[in-house]
Every structure is written in structure tokens, then in C-alpha cells.
């Protein structure tokens, strides 16, 4: 199982961002970390038998937490869950929000992968995006990270932003590659409703690159990065061999994942559920439960001392699950049909595509039986390809992947 931990705070909100995040005061952040820690412990009770293969601290900007807060969360996590020895542990950060000391703390806590939001190498573009750092800030942070010893670093880039041309984007790619990161996520800008960008540009409105230019930019990204030794393993993700993000691959391959924190989403045993999105309410519900949470904490040592009698275990597990249930809003059980659909529309995001033998082993039906007609139509239209017993998108298929994926809904 994978863990996702959400930190909904940032220094200031970017103009294109529609994530659950925003600036906040130190008091709220402190109470949030307390609540989060309580949730980590409660979830640990429920899933103590699962081995955690990856952890991802996302946000927001998780790096705005203090070193102490990171330590507290990690202590709770290690005490509550069984982390695999080779677990991939990533934290998202923004340039200029970390010191050398903080980076050392990350290393000591066990974090082994950094994901840095660079977005652009051009300070004018950074400003226009509403970012609060410069390219120089990034260079400093990046150099510190290398110095401290991080050997797996991702940089996020955004393409197809207002005013961008194919040539200016090529400049960004050149600079990015010259820094030699292990991983690059290159996203085409999505103008999301409710963001300042939406008010400014609307959907596909004036000022943004046209669809044709956008695809040209996308195409250049792939060719340029592949030439530079980065393989595109997902629609927007590129990595040097062996440095694909294991955590994110889990989402596309439907590995179980547990989301912790406000608004976090989970997939566990074919149930999808997510947490309430209101920070104050999240804090209130988990803080209230702190008293009983402490009872749970007391029972934990008894449990370990008494040699884990089944009865005690189930009582504390039950308490924990009741506590967590209060912060769950939507819960949906996926039937076999929904599972097959997800397998396809998520799996196709990866360039290697969906494994036919794995599909058949999992569902006990041949792909031909379930999707024969769609497959042959899509292959004929040049949108899909079957290679080495895997179904994957063609280049044209990537361009209009929503259309292709929608065909796999039964």
C-alpha cells in the first residue's frame, strides 16, 4: 500500500492552482499537524498489517513545515505503519522554502526523493504564473539538495502558458536538462475554473497558445527530452531509466493507496473515498477525538506487551475506524465493471500501456471479450496499438486520449 500525506498550505497561491491549498497562520498549521498526526496513528491501527511501499508528501507546499513538524509526522508514521526498507519517500517543495538544515532533516527522516516546483526558467514567466521564486532561487535549492546528498530529484515544468512560443519553451527545456535532474514532469497548462487564470483567459481563450501550438510544444518536449536521455513513461512524465516515480505509477496501476490529511483521496480494497475539504473542520473532528485517541495510544503498548490478543486488537482497530469515518465524505465501492474501466483509462496513461495477461488474470475474462470492438475500432483509427501483449496509445492517441479512454467505459 502507498501513503499520500496532504499538506494544504503554501506561502501564496499561484494564479493557475486549483489544488486544496492556501496560505495560513502558524497556529493553524500547528493544529493541523497535530490532527494529521492523530490521523496517521489512527490509520496505522487500521492498516498495521499492510506494508507501505511509497510515501508522498504533497500539497500545497509541504516544505513550509518546520523541521520539528516533519520529525513529528515521520515519528508517528514510522511508529504506526510498517514501511518497506526500500520505500520511495517523496516530498514536494518550492524553491526558496528550504535551508540546508531542513534538507538534512529530510534526509535523516528517510526522505529519498525531492519534487521541486520549478515551472519555468524564465523569471518573467514565473511572475506571470504567480510564483514567488526566481530561477536563481531554484538553482540555490537544487545545489543544496545535491550537496546534502539527494540522488533522485524531479522538477515540475509547465508548458503552453500565456505568451509561450515553441522557441521559448525549447530554451526552458535546454536549461532544465542542463541541471541534470533524474525526473521531469512537464505539464501542459490546464486553465481550471475558479482560478485567477480562468478569469483572465477563460477556457482556451485569448492569449494562450492555440491547440496546434500546444501540441507542437508537447511534441517538442517529448523529442527533446528523449534525445537527452529521459524516457516519457506517462503522458506528462519523463525519467532517466530506473527513476520513474513509483508512487505515481501506483495510481495508474491501481495499487491501493491511503490518503491522509484534509481532502486526501484513497483507494483501498476497491473502495474509493476521500476526506472532507475544510481544514478547520478536519482539525476539529480529529482534535476532539484526541482524548479517545490517547486511550487508543494507551492500549497500543498493552497490545504489544500482552502479545497481541485478538480481542484487544479488534477493539482498537474499531475505534480507529470510527474516528476516520467522521472525516470521510464520499465512499464508492467499485464493481468489477468499474475496476475494468479504471484499469484501462488509468493504465493507458502510461506509455507502456495495459498488460493483456495481467488484465485477464485479474478479471478472469479476455480483453477481447470485454473490449474487442473498441480495440479494433481504435486500432483502425490509429489511436491504439497492441505490442508485446500490452495495449498502449499511439502518439495520435495521446493527443486525444480523453476520447480514447471514454470508449473504454462500458
Amino acid at each position, binding site marked *: 500500500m502507498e501513503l499520500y500525506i496532504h499538506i494544504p498550505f503554501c506561502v501564496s497561491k499561484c494564479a493557475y492552482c486549483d489544488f486544496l491549498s492556501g496560505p495560513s497562520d502558524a497556529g493553524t498549521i500547528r493544529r493541523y499537524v497535530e490532527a494529521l498526526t492523530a490521523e496517521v496513528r489512527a490509520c496505522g491501527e487500521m492498516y498495521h498489517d499492510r506494508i507501505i511501499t511509497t510515501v508522498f508528501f504533497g500539497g500545497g507546499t509541504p516544505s513550509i513545515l518546520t523541521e520539528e513538524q516533519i520529525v513529528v509526522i515521520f515519528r508517528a508514521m514510522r511508529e504506526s505503519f510498517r514501511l518497506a526498507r526500500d520505500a520511495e519517500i517523496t516530498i514536494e517543495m518550492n524553491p526558496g522554502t528550504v535551508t540546508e538544515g531542513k534538507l538534512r532533516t529530510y534526509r535523516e527522516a528517510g526522505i529519498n526523493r525531492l519534487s521541486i516546483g520549478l515551472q519555468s526558467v524564465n523569471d518573467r514567466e514565473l511572475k506571470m504564473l504567480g510564483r514567488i521564486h526566481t530561477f536563481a532561487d531554484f538553482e540555490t535549492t537544487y545545489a543544496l539538495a545535491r550537496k546534502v546528498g539527494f540522488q533522485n530529484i524531479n522538477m515540475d515544468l509547465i508548458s503552453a502558458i500565456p505568451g509561450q512560443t515553441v522557441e521559448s519553451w525549447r530554451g526552458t527545456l535546454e536549461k532544465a536538462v542542463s541541471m541534470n535532474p533524474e525526473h521531469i514532469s512537464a505539464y501542459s497548462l490546464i486553465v481550471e475554473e475558479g482560478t485567477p487564470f480562468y478569469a483572465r483567459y477563460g477556457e482556451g481563450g485569448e492569449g494562450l497558445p492555440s491547440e496546434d501550438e500546444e501540441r507542437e510544444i508537447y511534441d517538442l518536449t517529448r523529442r527533446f527530452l528523449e534525445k537527452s536521455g529521459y524516457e516519457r513513461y506517462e503522458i506528462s512524465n519523463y525519467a532517466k531509466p530506473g527513476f520513474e516515480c513509483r508512487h505515481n505509477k501506483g495510481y495508474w496501476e491501481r495499487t491501493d493507496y491511503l490518503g491522509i490529511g484534509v481532502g486526501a483521496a484513497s483507494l483501498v480494497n476497491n473502495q474509493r473515498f476521500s476526506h472532507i475539504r475544510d481544514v478547520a473542520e478536519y482539525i476539529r473532528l480529529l482534535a476532539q477525538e484526541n482524548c479517545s485517541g490517547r486511550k487508543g495510544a494507551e492500549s497500543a503498548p498493552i497490545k504489544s506487551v500482552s502479545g497481541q490478543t485478538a480481542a484487544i486488537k479488534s477493539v482498537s482497530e474499531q475505534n480507529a475506524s470510527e474516528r476516520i469515518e467522521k472525516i470521510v465524505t464520499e465512499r464508492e465501492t467499485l464493481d468489477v465493471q468499474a475496476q475494468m474501466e479504471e484499469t484501462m483509462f488509468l493504465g493507458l496513461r502510461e506509455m507502456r500501456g495495459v498488460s493483456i495477461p495481467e488484465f485477464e488474470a485479474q478479471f478472469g475474462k479476455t480483453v477481447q471479450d470485454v473490449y474487442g470492438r473498441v480495440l479494433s475500432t481504435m486500432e483502425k483509427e490509429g489511436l491504439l496499438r497492441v505490442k508485446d501483449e500490452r495495449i498502449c496509445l499511439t502518439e495520435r492517441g495521446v*493527443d486525444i486520449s480523453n476520447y480514447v479512454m471514454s470508449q473504454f467505459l462500458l
Partner: protein
Amino acid sequence: MATIDQSKIRNFCIIAHIDHGKSTLADRIIEKTGLLTSREMQAQVLDNMELERERGITIKAQSVRIVYNAQDGEEYVFNLIDTPGHVDFNYEVSRSLAACDGAILVVDAAQGVEAQTLANVYLALDHDLDVMPVINKIDLPSADPGRVIEEIEDVIGIEAADAPLISAKTGLNIEEVLEQIVKKIPAPQGDANAPLQALIFDSLYDSYKGVIVFCRIKEGRVKKGTQIRMMATGAEAEVVEVGYFGAGQFIPADELSAGMVGYITASLKNVKDTRVGDTVTDAQNPCSEPLPGYKKVNPMVYCGLYPADGAKYPDLRDALEKLQLNDASLQFEAETSIALGFGFRCGFLGLLHLEIIQERLEREYNLDLVTTAPGVIYKVYKTNGDVIELTNPSNLPDPSEIDYMEEPMVKAEIMVTAEFIGAIMDLCQERRGIYQGMEYIEETRAVLRYHLPLNEIIYDFFDALKSRSRGYASFDYEMLGYERSELVKLDILINKEEVDALSFIVHAGTAYERGRKMCEKLKEEIPRQLFEIPIQAAVGSKIIARETVKAMRKDVLAKCYGGDITRKRKLLEKQKEGKKRMRQVGNVEIPQSAFMSVLKLDDK
């Protein structure tokens, strides 16, 4: 209730040009007669169809029976029959008039006599009704009752000196209207002891009561148990209930006798058994001959109506049958389209009638419809001597078999203030109108006479007229007959395939312009697809316009992580659902809205 003395009954309707305040006056009359308290009055109680209220117009003729205590100390029964005002609904007006003995003519004190004022008065006079003028809206600052009275006397030629000067909106002088109804509208003359002779002027279908027949009893009487016969259809049934019309409800009574207006329900289940205009008589003691009924009105505008969901075809048939029951002017027959599947070719009195039927089908019967471009009936003279009456452009024979074609023409009268005469003449010119003359009614207003092809006025002529005269022009027309014309069939090809539902007949001189506009509009409506789609307009084998829908270039979600998956599924589902609402023509998906959008090609 005992039989009422005929001399105390007044059967009348209200006629007016649209917006002169007919429905408001009806409301006031009902209010003042005390049948309803002010609190019970919804605005415009007679317009009980949701659609009528929303559009603020009267579509279906409605009736109400009210009781008035006159100044002479007697109690009178008024049967007020509301009539629609729009030019499309002359037929409905005609039906209502046949049930009346007199008519109140409402004229706007500011606007004066308008085209439909005249048309309606002539209709009323055709039915031998006494016309009683009323000047409305005298509370308006621009009211000029003196001038309007003169106009009524000069233009229409009826006495108007003592016409009540009222404001239906404020209720001013409504009492005088009521008194004049008693004095000026004649009482019915019928023999209650003669054999039953009743005119059906409307009917509707109720799922509990079955068919409800609205009728005016001319002679004789009818009550529960009477075995009635419909003289035209021959259908017989036993009367289950008779009664009269309360405001918005049916009030049962013991019997209806000569001079009265009311309803009959009988064990009639089949919608087709009752026909508006038919005569009801007593099967045991029949009258010698039926009443004259109404002149049958022929539809002038045709279009195809198709269910958006092919499986709803039987539902559409059922709904059309039920609507036809109280709208005899609606005609339909089954047809099939390559693009749209099974549907009906329907005939309407005009474009407004079409729109209203379409909306009623959608609202009252919950049907999702696709409508093809409306057209008129063309006469096609073939070289072999045959003549075809063409209602569906797809049935046009091969040009080599056609000798010549004729299209229907109308005689139009347009009333307009002097300053807009130029603009309106330009409009008529553009619509292939032939100028017939102009007369000034007064210094600042004139009547323009034109002969116009009907197919030029069924689309948006009325809207164009209003917009070019800032709302001041009014318009009426009557059929003139057929004239030879240079007509061609304009076909639309999407991805090189002809879409039958988009074909229409057009004058050769405007084919290029129309074709170009159609292609532009379709380009906006058809979403990008996997491949490039040419949209072409063609006359015969000649392409006269072309647009291209470019291939879909990009439809991709850049990010999809743990928190995005549920949303992603919804997006894909929506995308798939959207596809279902498309019509597949060849390998192109055409949204239903595309078929409709071409109906409204903007004039400018």
C-alpha cells in the same frame, strides 16, 4: 340549477390585436363579476397553460362562465370565450367565434387600429357577431382615445362614439363594459325543446374523464344519460356528465340547454371520435342537419418532427394525436429520414404554431425533439403531366422530370409609421415581395400592401419586421394562391454525404446566400472529430458553398493523480454521454442542436 332564461345569457368573446390587452380585460371581467376574489386572481387566470403564461400570449381558446348582477336588478350569465390573438391562430379564433353571439373589440388607445384588429373584426362580422368596441390603456400618457374612436369609425366602419374608455390594467371603467355587454350583445335565440344541435368548438383529453367536448348548445338540451351522436364521425356514446366552465375548473350541472356554453363528457375514449366543428345531436331524436361547422383550415408550414431518442417514436405519435384533439389545425403523417430515423411530417398554420406545438410536445409530453427546416407546400409540375404537392424536400423528383414549380404567395398588409416605411419596403424587397400599393390611414401611419412568397415569411419575417420598425409595424396576411417560381433544392453534404433532414427548397436567387449561411452555422455546431469534415451546400451536383470542421487536435488531461481519478471518470462519462446525444450520419456525429440551429439563420 334550473334552466336559465335565454334572455339572461350573453355569449361573447374578446378580440384584439396582439398586446392590446385582451387577456387583462378578461381577467378584470372575471374579477368584477365576483366569481373570484382579488386574492384568488392569479395574473391572467384564463391563460392556464404554463406555456401561455410564460410567453404572455393566449394559445388555446379558453372559456369561463360567470354571473353578473346588472344595474337593472337582474342576474345575467356570461359565457366569456377567450381567443388567441396571433395571426397564426385565425382558425382558433374562428372556432371560438362560432360559439358566440357577440364580440368585444379591444383597441389600444395609443396604438389604434392594427392589422390584426381589422382581420379579427372581419372574422367576427363573417360569423354575424355584433361587435362592441372598447378603448383600452387610456391610462397611458400616449393614449389618444379621440383619435382611436375616429379610426375605428373610419377604418372599420363601426359605431364607437360610446365605446367605454377603460384601463384593464387598473380596472378603470370595467363596470361600463359589463353594462354594455348586457345591452349590446344579443341574447341567444334557440329552441330548448327542439332536437339537440350543439357545436363542438374545442375538446381536450383528460386521463380520468377521457375526451371532454366543449360545445355551444344551439338547439335542444343535453343531460347525463342522453345518447349522443357526433354527426360527422357517426360515433355514439352515452353522456356521463355535463357542466360549465368555472375559472380553471369544470363545474358539473344537471343539463345544458339551448343558448348555453358548456362541456360534455361521454364514454368516448377514442380521440378521433370527436372533431372540432362537428355537431352533437341526440341519437334518439336527431336534428335534421348539422351546423355549418368551420371552414377547414389547411396547414401552410411543414416540417419533420423526430424523437431525439428513436425508441420514443410511439410516444410522439400518441402525443401528436392528443394535441390534434384540441388543435384540429395540426396535421401529421409518418415519414422516415436517413439521418433522423422514424418521425412525422407535420403541418402547421405558421411558424409560431410550429414552435408552440414543439414546446408543448417537449413540456407536456416530456419528449426531446429534433425539428427539420420548415417549408411550405410547393406544386411540382412534371414533364409527364403529373402534379405533386411537395411537403418534404427529399421527395423532390429529379430535375430532369420537372417541367416547372409553383410556390404559395400571400397578400400581406403591413401597418407602419411613416418613418419606417423605407426600411420595411427594403425588407419586403429582400424577401422577393411585389409592391401592390400604399395608403395612409392618418398622417403618420400607412398600410403597405405586398404580395410575398410564403416561404419568405415563415422563417423570421415577423422578427425582422419588428426589429426594423422598432416594434411599430404590424402585419397580417392571407393566402393568395400559387405562382410559378424558379425554385431549387439546396442540399447539405456533411463529409460528402447528403443529409436529407437538412435539405430544403429555396428560390434560385437566394440559394447561394442561404447555402453559405447554413455551412457557417453548421461549422459552429458540429464539434471537431477525429478527422477533418467538409460541410458543403449543393444545388444539384454543383457545390455552392463550403466550410471545414478541422480535425480534433487535442483532448488530453495533463494530470491525473490519486485525487483526480473520480473526477476523471466523470469527465469521461460526460464525454461518452454527449456522444450518445449525437446523430450518426455516415461516420460523422452531428449534435441534435445542429438540425435546429439552421432554422434560425440570422438575418443580418
